[in-house]
């Protein structure tokens, strides 16, 4: 009997297998037909996708207003830059270390402020991001190189003979990381943690009343989001070979905020679309020269007018009748 039992069709984001294979194939073949410039654009698209995914954990999943995410991104980038240039530790070894450093920083600064609500949390995270940036400019303990930043960062390697040093290799590195992150985040969305997060976003008081440790889950979201931003910082630092405070301004935090909202809160494919919009739009509209940001601002307003829920809004999880009978859960993400 086919009607009883768990649903056999595995879909991700409502896309069927053929579409997923086609997307995967396009991502793999793309760099072999594109010019180096376009591959580099695709690399930065990947960085923004990673940043969008990282803020999506905090803003999209839990609904915490975080306008200082560039601060975590900066911590990741500077951890990589300083440890690599001073001690020569290979970049890929520093990848998890940057994530841990950014996560630890998030734990330290967010613990005392986690009880703040809505816009007050927004302004405090904003202040935190600005404090990080100004601190980097002021060169504490002669570590961060002041306004010039740190330069001379290596190509990514594990210390062995294999070194990532061409645009194509960078492209694959970033998109493999993005792919792994997406896989992990889907698993997280369907887990106990993901459900607790969404519960807090929808109704914090009800979540608390049902016995969810709201503070713990909020803090966890900040730590994981910061860690992923730290990973993005690591890859960004090695691609540019230098980091400077002007890459981590309030503006960068705003862009990440827009990525999540343009894509759709809590929606992973939406965030990828949002990242594409933010990173590719200025490239595509380069012929407009000085008018392109004018168009960009208008496009943002129009997006919100016509698709206020985002380009690819997240569907509510639903348990189908069929799968109930089979005793297994099939959730649409």
């Amino acid at each position, binding site marked *: 009997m086919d009607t009883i039992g768990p649903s056999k069709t595995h879909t991700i984001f409502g896309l069927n297998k053929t579409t997923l294979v086609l997307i995967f194939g396009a991502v793999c073949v793309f760099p072999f037909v594109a010019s180096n410039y376009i591959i580099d654009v695709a690399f930065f698209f990947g960085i923004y996708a990673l940043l969008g995914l990282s803020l999506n954990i905090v803003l999209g999943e839990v609904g915490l207003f975080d306008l200082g995410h560039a601060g975590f991104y900066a911590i990741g980038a500077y951890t990589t830059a300083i440890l690599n240039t001073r001690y020569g530790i290979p970049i890929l070894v520093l990848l998890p270390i940057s994530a841990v450093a950014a996560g630890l920083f998030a734990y330290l600064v967010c613990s005392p402020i986690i009880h703040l609500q809505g816009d*007050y949390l927004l*302004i405090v995270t904003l202040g935190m991001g600005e404090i990080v940036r*100004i*601190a980097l400019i002021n060169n504490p303990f002669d570590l961060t190189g002041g306004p010039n930043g740190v330069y001379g960062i290596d190509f990514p390697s594990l210390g062995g003979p294999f070194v990532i040093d061409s645009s194509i290799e960078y492209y694959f590195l970033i998109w493999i990381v993005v792919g792994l992150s997406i896989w992990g985040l889907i698993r997280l969305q369907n887990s106990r943690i993901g459900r607790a997060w969404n519960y807090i976003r929808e109704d914090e008081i009800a979540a608390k009343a049902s016995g969810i440790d709201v503070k713990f889950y909020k803090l966890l979201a900040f730590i994981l989001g910061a860690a992923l931003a730290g990973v993005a910082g690591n890859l960004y630092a090695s691609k540019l070979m230098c980091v400077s405070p002007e890459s981590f301004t*309030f503006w960068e935090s*705003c862009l990440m905020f827009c990525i999540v*909202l343009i894509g759709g809160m809590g929606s992973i494919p939406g965030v990828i679309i949002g990242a594409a919009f933010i990173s590719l739009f200025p490239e595509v509209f380069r012929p407009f020269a000085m008018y392109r940001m004018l168009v960009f601002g208008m496009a*943002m*307003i129009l*997006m919100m007018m016509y698709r206020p829920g985002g380009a690819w809004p997240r569907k509510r999880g639903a348990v189908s009748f069929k799968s109930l009978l089979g005793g297994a859960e099939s959730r649409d993400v």
Partner: protein
Amino acid sequence: MQIFFEQLINGLTIGSFYALIALGYSMVYGVLKLINFAHGDFFTLGSYLGYTVLVFGSAFLTLHFGLWGGLIVAMMVAAVSLAVVGIIVERLAYRPVYPAGRLPAVVSALGASIFLQNLIMVIWGPRFQAYPTAVIPNIHMQLGGIHFTMLQVLILVMSFFLMGGLYYIVQKTTFGAAIRATALDRDTTALMGININKVILFVFTLGPALGAITGIMVGMYYRQISFTMGWNYGLKAFTASVLGGIGNIPGAMVGGLILGVLEMFGAAYISAAWKDVFVFLILILVLIFRPTGLLGEKQADKV
């Protein structure tokens, strides 16, 4: 002690800039619960319009209105134009997004901010513009060993009158009561027969107009303006309004003045490079212990 008082005057001058801009943020937030990120750019646009009036109309203005008259004409032109711009932005960029909730409106506001900032760059160019300084004579004054300029006195007096006027409207008139009621509970206020659209129109007229006048004062005080300056002042003014308790109009004034004074004392007694860190740390500390700002009232959680 002399340094203390001089820094106090400097701080109050800058603080009154922040306070006047913060009022725009706070009024809009009170009525619509919207963080109007474009407000900083209203301020910049006002500054540039005043600049154009002062530069291109200088001969005509001085001939017909005198030095001071010219300045007042420039401020009025900028204020009226910005009131119109404020209404246009509200109609085109914000009103269609309100039904969707608060967060899409934030993105729309950021979009409007990018648009205005780049519009200013396209019209006036990306370079710094030197503000005409001949309007206000550069007179230094001294009182009991404390030095200050006439411009500072002028700015303080003007800000005092502008803030006093706004305070009067909001706290003492019937229409002000309608604004405060809207800030408390929009739906109930509408049910009581108050025209919410009029209140929205009012905050989007007066906020940008105050911003425009502040823009001209900032231009005269620092003698140069750039198309990106709205971002910085907007950030500080928004911080100030949260410090005082966002949505609360006296709170925005107090928050702005405190922020300016703290910044100047931080620069004088701690370190000029770390002054903004100092300001944000104070803000974070205030919010940890008083989560709704200095003058904000504690709200009970609604279930």
